[in-house]
């Protein structure tokens, strides 16, 4: 690799003919730095890799390792004016082997490259499309920007592109706005937009992280298909090793802005060289490994911590002339379960199926119908003070630890707050208790004086756990409590939760959409769909013998972190998940659960 800086720069403007049939994209010694309050700081350092034609390169690494920055640097879309390319070259080659250095290209020329030669898909499908423009408009304009096509022709191309990403009724969809589509659909529109002009390179920055597993499967499948058809080279950024295993030809592992390891997918997974890679792989939860972790709790225990019977939660939507209630969200539609001490019940299901709502009902955050019995006392019949006392036994850990801690309070005060509210212990005792709690969750007592934003995500979640523990609850509801964390951090938090359960005998209601995690931690599993439970049983029953088609789909959709075990084609869902919103008076049909023996319940329709 010659690095004559001057010749490279001129090469950007006058296409230089190179003899070798080199890669489409070649990045050499890329350094990206951001300016902060404390001066300039590199976030990507001396990064070099190349991308061959038709290849899928995965960039993996923990959060903040500089993956996105790399992608943005290629696109020349680094956040301005904070970030800039310090040095290095980004060479893009076309079929005629002319090469251009994107790192020094001026904005006007770069504009022609973007979208046309290199396209990009971003992580958040919900926010990556302009909410006020119809998707047709957004598709057509990107086609028009790079071709001389007439509006009608551009439209035809747009429809083709939508069809290519398997969006039904493509023509009428053009008129729809992003908010009228589901997350998966939006991500497919993004892909259609990116691929409409058949770019040489597609950069996908965590394209599926925000999606449900089932939808993720579909989207990955789609990417693969399209790559096969067009021979596009893909850079796929992800922190999910399962996705890496599923998609990658080659893998780049990054940490702290540097490349730690590079190799083929098979090599990385079977013969990881760097310690960090090994660590990363070890932390990945895998379906199947959870079995035998501990013996599953047998059937139902006599004294349940919590019993939920025929729980309904509805949200009324107002409309009509006088703003009367005319529609209703049937978020939770008659579910029943019980949790025993020492037991972990997992609640799984796709986004919007009512998991969080169930948790909130249990925690007393939303009004409900039906019975919730905690420690043998039915909440419905209690007065305010008694209810408060009973509620002490149920604590909750939320998905986003940052959002669930008041950012303006010191963490020590936050952990002490439940004690204060319930009038437990004197001031000195309290601070001792809090210090003990901090130590118990693996934080040091002198961190009590800090504010939430001064911690990392994993540490914050530990603070939330300490806070939940403060009242010595019998039941802790963990709503997606580890979903936002990096795999390695996730693993450590899960370990902590298990430890605490062993120690205090706490029961967990563990809510997650990640089947691998669920298999790892749960004793029993309940699968929710559209506000109802479609299957419930012990972990083994559900994972090794899933009976409901929906359960099967969920399990199948989980990518396996092993390139050798790539799944066969993933079955596509023909239609979107129906909405739990219905007009007043139209109640959804109720599913009956059938016992297949040993408490393995399955819905029959």
């Amino acid at each position: 690799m010659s690095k004559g800086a001057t010749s490279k720069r001129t090469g950007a403007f006058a296409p230089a003919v190179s003899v070798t049939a080199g890669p489409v994209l070649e990045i050499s010694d890329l350094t990206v730095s951001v300016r902060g309050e404390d001066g300039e700081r590199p976030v990507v350092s001396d990064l070099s890799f190349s991308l061959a034609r038709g290849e899928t390169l995965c960039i993996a690494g923990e959060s903040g390792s500089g993956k996105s920055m790399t992608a943005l640097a290629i696109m020349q879309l680094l956040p301005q004016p904070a970030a800039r390319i310090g040095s290095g070259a980004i060479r893009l080659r076309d079929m005629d082997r002319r090469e251009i250095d994107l790192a020094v290209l001026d904005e006007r020329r770069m504009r022609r490259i973007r979208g046309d030669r290199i396209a990009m898909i971003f992580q958040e499908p919900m926010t990556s499309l302009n909410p006020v423009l119809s998707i047709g408009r957004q598709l057509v304009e990107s086609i028009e920007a790079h071709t001389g096509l007439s509006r009608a022709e551009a439209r035809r191309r747009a429809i083709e592109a939508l069809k290519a990403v398997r969006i039904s009724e493509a023509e009428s969809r053009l008129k729809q706005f992003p908010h009228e589509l589901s997350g998966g659909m939006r991500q497919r529109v993004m892909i259609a937009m990116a691929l409409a002009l058949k770019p040489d390179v597609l950069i996908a920055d965590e394209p599926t992280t925000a999606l449900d597993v089932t939808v993720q499967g579909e989207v990955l499948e789609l990417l693969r298909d399209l790559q096969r058809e067009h021979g596009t080279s893909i850079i796929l950024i992800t922190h999910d090793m399962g996705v890496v295993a599923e998609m990658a030809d080659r893998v780049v592992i990054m940490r702290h802005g540097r490349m730690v390891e590079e190799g083929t997918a098979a090599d990385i997974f079977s013969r990881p060289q760097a310690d960090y890679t090994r660590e990363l792989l070890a932390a990945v939860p895998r379906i199947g490994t959870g079995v035998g972790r501990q013996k599953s709790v047998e059937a139902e225990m006599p004294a349940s911590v919590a019993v939920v019977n025929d729980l309904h939660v509805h949200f009324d939507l107002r409309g009509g002339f006088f703003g009367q209630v005319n529609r209703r969200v049937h978020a939770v539609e008659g579910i029943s379960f019980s949790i025993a001490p020492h037991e972990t019940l997992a609640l799984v299901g796709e986004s919007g199926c009512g998991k969080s709502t169930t948790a909130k009902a249990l925690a007393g955050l939303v009004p409900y119908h039906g019975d919730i019995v905690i420690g043998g006392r039915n909440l419905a019949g209690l007065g305010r003070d008694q209810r408060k006392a009973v509620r002490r036994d149920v604590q909750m850990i939320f998905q986003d630890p940052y959002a669930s801690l008041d950012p303006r309070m010191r963490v020590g005060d936050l952990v002490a707050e439940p004690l204060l509210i319930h009038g437990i212990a004197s001031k000195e005792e309290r601070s001792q208790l809090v210090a003990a709690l901090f130590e118990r969750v693996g934080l040091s007592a002198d961190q009590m004086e800090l504010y939430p934003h001064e911690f990392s995500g994993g540490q914050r979640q530990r603070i939330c756990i300490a806070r939940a523990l403060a009242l010595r609850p019998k039941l802790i509801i963990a709503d997606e409590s580890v979903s936002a964390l990096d795999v390695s951090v996730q693993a450590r938090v899960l370990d902590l939760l298990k430890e605490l359960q062993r120690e205090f005998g706490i029961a967990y209601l563990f809510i997650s959409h990640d089947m691998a995690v669920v298999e790892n931690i749960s004793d029993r599993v309940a699968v929710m769909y559209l506000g109802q439970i479609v299957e419930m049983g012990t972990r083994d029953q559900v994972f090794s013998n899933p009976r409901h088609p929906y359960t099967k789909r969920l399990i199948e959709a989980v990518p396996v972190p092993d390139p050798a075990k790539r799944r066969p084609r993933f079955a596509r869902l023909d239609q979107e998940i129906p909405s739990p919103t219905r007009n007043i008076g139209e109640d959804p049909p109720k599913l009956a659960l059938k016992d297949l023996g040993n408490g393995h319940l399955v819905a029959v329709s």
Partner: protein
Amino acid sequence: MPARPRAGVWRRLVKRPLALIGLVIVAVVVAGAILAPWLTGYDPNEQMFDGLTLEGAPLPPNASFWLGTDLLGRDLLTRILFGARTSLIIGIVANGVALLIGTLVGVTAGYFRGWIGGALMRFTDLMMAFPALLLAICLAAVLQPSLWIVAMVIALVNWVQTARVIYTETSSLAEREFIDAERTIGASAPRILFRHILPHLLPTIIVWGTLGISTTVLLEATLSYLGIGVQPPTASWGNIIFENQTYFQAAPWLVFFPGAAILALALAFNLIGDALRDILDPTQRGRA
């Protein structure tokens, strides 16, 4: 590590040139208001014989009257200095009361939905529908104006925007996850309101407070301009202009200096408020 909340606000404020200009102007005005009796040798209300020409015309700026005299032969500089008191009192009291009402209404309506919140917000809508100045004029006419009455009238007219803003913010705060988290540990409504919601509103309140001062000072000036503000001979920047406005051509200093004073003070508070908005904005914290 980014600065802790609130710690260092002052330091960061003085680091911004525009905010610093604002602070300096406010400091000068406050000092002028406090030291007014000692700064010039004149009484603000003394109509001096040598303060007018024989034809009764005011004197332009000169050695003994630095900013000239007004139509009654009073020293304009002294009046402007004393007028600063009025403007500051109005700015602080009227605006403070408006802020208090607005915050109370906004927080209550935002946190307690249901009929209390509904009723309060409908009332706020109602007040919004009043043409503010017309309402102020009517009120000022009903309640015979004095400094404090004018302050109250302005407060009564001005709380509405604050209430709206605080309402929106409180309702979105109430939706935040950490409020749910507080509820799960059994925190009572007052505790949530005072310990968790109010501190978050503080930046907004401070910002609206500073921005509101300028609005208030301007409103007083306008009321005085229309002859229904602070009663003469008490000087206020607005009524100095009101008394002299027809002379804007013959004696431009009479309008120019107090006009510039109003502009400068309003501008100063706006600049400070704007800087505070940036500094206290939680989404800005910890960012570069």
